[in-house]
């Protein structure tokens, strides 16, 4: 308790009677004393008369004493200094320079606090100044720490800090008289949209004046990846979307693009255009990982000249890609009961994603109708065996006639071979079209 105590004495009544009763009794005593004195007025001997008056008045005074029970009260008065809280923003944005090439905002505040120290010293008999840093919590801080320790807070929540401050009042000795806030104003909690609505009401109800000192020049240019929202894992060959928050300060009207890369290879890009000098854009990247494993993805935006901070132009995240279902390609040279069974077996397995093709018509077959009256589609050999073969876990080729040039797979041997070398699986099942003549089949990879 920073106070000097002063003792004073005070005359008080110790009677339990209420004030009005005391007044009434006092008035009654006075009337009685007057009547008693009037009764003695006929006393012929003056000395005796005065003596009787004196005794009656003394009696009235004694009665009054007994009535009001006078006492002396000792009052100890302590003088308490006004408590001023100096809140200093310790969020990471305070590491930004106040101007391009200048010292950091934290260092600037430290300078200001040091400059104010003599004035605070001069006011110390009436005011106590408490230096506290705030980001998402309050903690004591010194100007030395402001100069030497970089601000690391991940969040600026001024209202929460003010509430904590108010809650620390406790006894009257800790009562808050005022708050002085040093901040760059980049609140990302309740004051993100400014002092309005509920935030304004909270401040009005605070009951203590809050003064603010803005730190940093408003004209800083900076493009920053503020945050990335993405799931921790994705299923292979299933789309996933990463949402990237990009904040642009001083880039009104600027168009650019955000790039998502994996292992240095561009996965996706998103165009951006900023509409104001303090703009927040959300870039969405939708992509389908094509391999299982754990991968590091990097989102980046270009570094422009005169940007205050360049380290925040890119950010990485880790994505674990896991297998969803086993993806099987089933190609049957012709429909048979065996293939019907196999297709049914694979299709009913919830862990299998089946793509199947039956060759329902070979070159010599004549349906006798135009193509438009058939439900047949061309066998997409190129698409499957050149472009998408690596998306399958298993190729099952059943009773396939490679002698038919319209469906033969020989030209895809290299692709299938590479697929196998990359870990793919191949099941090549014979039948009358492949092994029926007991000759060596002209099948992909068999001759290799």
């Amino acid at each position, binding site marked *: 308790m920073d106070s000097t105590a002063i003792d004073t004495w005070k005359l008080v009544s110790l009677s339990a009677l209420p004030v009005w009763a005391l007044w009434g009794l006092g008035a009654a005593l006075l009337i009685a004393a007057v009547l008693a004195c009037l009764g003695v007025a006929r006393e012929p001997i003056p000395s005796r008369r005065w003596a009787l008056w004196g005794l009656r008045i003394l009696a009235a005074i004694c009665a009054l004493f007994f009535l009001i029970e006078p006492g002396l009260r000792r009052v100890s008065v302590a003088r308490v200094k006004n408590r001023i809280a100096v809140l200093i923003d310790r969020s990471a944005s305070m590491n930004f320079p106040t101007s391009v090439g200048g010292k950091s905002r934290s260092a600037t505040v430290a300078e200001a606090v040091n400059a104010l120290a003599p004035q605070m010293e001069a006011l110390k008999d009436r005011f106590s100044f408490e230096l506290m840093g705030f980001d998402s919590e309050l903690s004591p801080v010194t100007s030395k720490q402001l100069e030497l320790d970089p601000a690391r807070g991940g969040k600026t929540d001024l209202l929460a800090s003010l509430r904590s401050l108010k809650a620390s009042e406790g006894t009257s000795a800790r009562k808050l008289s005022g708050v002085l806030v040093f901040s760059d104003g980049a609140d990302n909690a309740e004051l993100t949209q400014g002092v309005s609505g509920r935030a304004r009401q909270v401040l009005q109800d605070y009951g203590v004046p809050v003064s603010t000192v803005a730190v940093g020049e408003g004209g800083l240019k900076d493009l920053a990846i503020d945050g990335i929202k993405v799931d921790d894992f994705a299923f292979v060959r299933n789309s996933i979307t990463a949402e990237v928050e990009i904040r642009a300060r001083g880039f009104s009207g600027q168009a650019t693009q955000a790039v998502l890369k994996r292992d240095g290879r561009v996965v996706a890009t998103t165009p951006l255009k900023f509409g104001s000098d303090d703009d927040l854009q959300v870039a969405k990247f939708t992509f389908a990982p094509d391999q299982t494993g754990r991968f590091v993805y990097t989102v980046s935006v270009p570094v422009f000249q005169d940007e205050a901070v360049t380290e925040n132009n890119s950010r990485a995240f880790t994505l674990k890609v896991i297998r969803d279902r086993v993806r099987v390609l089933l190609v049957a040279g012709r*429909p048979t009961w065996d293939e019907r069974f196999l297709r049914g077996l694979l299709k009913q397995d919830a862990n299998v994603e089946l793509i199947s093709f039956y060759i*329902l018509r070979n070159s010599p077959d004549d349906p006798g109708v135009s193509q438009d009256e058939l*439900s047949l589609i061309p066998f997409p050999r190129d698409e499957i065996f050149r472009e998408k073969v690596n998306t399958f876990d298993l190729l099952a080729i059943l009773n396939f006639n490679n002698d038919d040039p319209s469906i033969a797979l020989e030209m895809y041997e290299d692709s299938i071979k590479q697929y196998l070398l990359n870990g793919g699986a191949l099941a090549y099942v014979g039948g009358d079209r492949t092994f029926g003549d007991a000759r060596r089949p002209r099948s992909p990879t068999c001759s290799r």
Partner: protein
Amino acid sequence: MLASALAAPAVARAFGDASRFIPAVAQHAGTWDTRASGLRRLAWELQRRTSVESILEARAVPLESPKLFELPFVYLSSDRELPAFTPPQLENLRRYLTFGGFVFADANDGSNGNGFDQSFRKLMSEVLPQVQPRPLPATHVVFKTFFLLDTAPGRYLTSAQLDAWTIGKRAAVIYSQNDVMGALARDESGTFEYEVTPGGERQREYATRLAINIAMYSLCLDYKDDGVHILEIMRRRR
């Protein structure tokens, strides 16, 4: 020795007929074999128009025989009311259908509410009492397993639709009241046995296509409902 040296080596085939399409016909106590030539024609058309290899002769199989389970496609018909089936026949047929067998039922008499139609529906209520027949919608895969069809004619046009008894997602029994095989049946001279009414030869062609589609359905089930086919089929149906 010389004879054996001169003899051309025969091609050895390790694969029997089991993988081929065999048009089996169910034997019962009534007239069960009136459409053997139609089945032969179906097998021939199937082999000519599609990649399916067929046995070109209908094969009869008693309904109570365990050999029923070796024949995944069975044709059941009569040109009159079906006789009552024996309990072993009912039980065997029930097991056959439940375990994946397929029956194509065909009213050779083109009946509706009487004759074969009535008796067959009664039979199915005994074989699969918990399955109700449903007409197959025009979007059912049987109408696009090979040919794109929007009708289901036979020798007659008694009913515009096919009915089916479905187990799970599979139509285990497909039933036509229009005598589909009657449209394909030929006599020994190779002439078609029956006139097709009312559509004549064009209707016969569509009946042939329907029979091929039904055979394809028994082999491929809902293959043509796979997503890779849908867009192309929708485009052609426009």
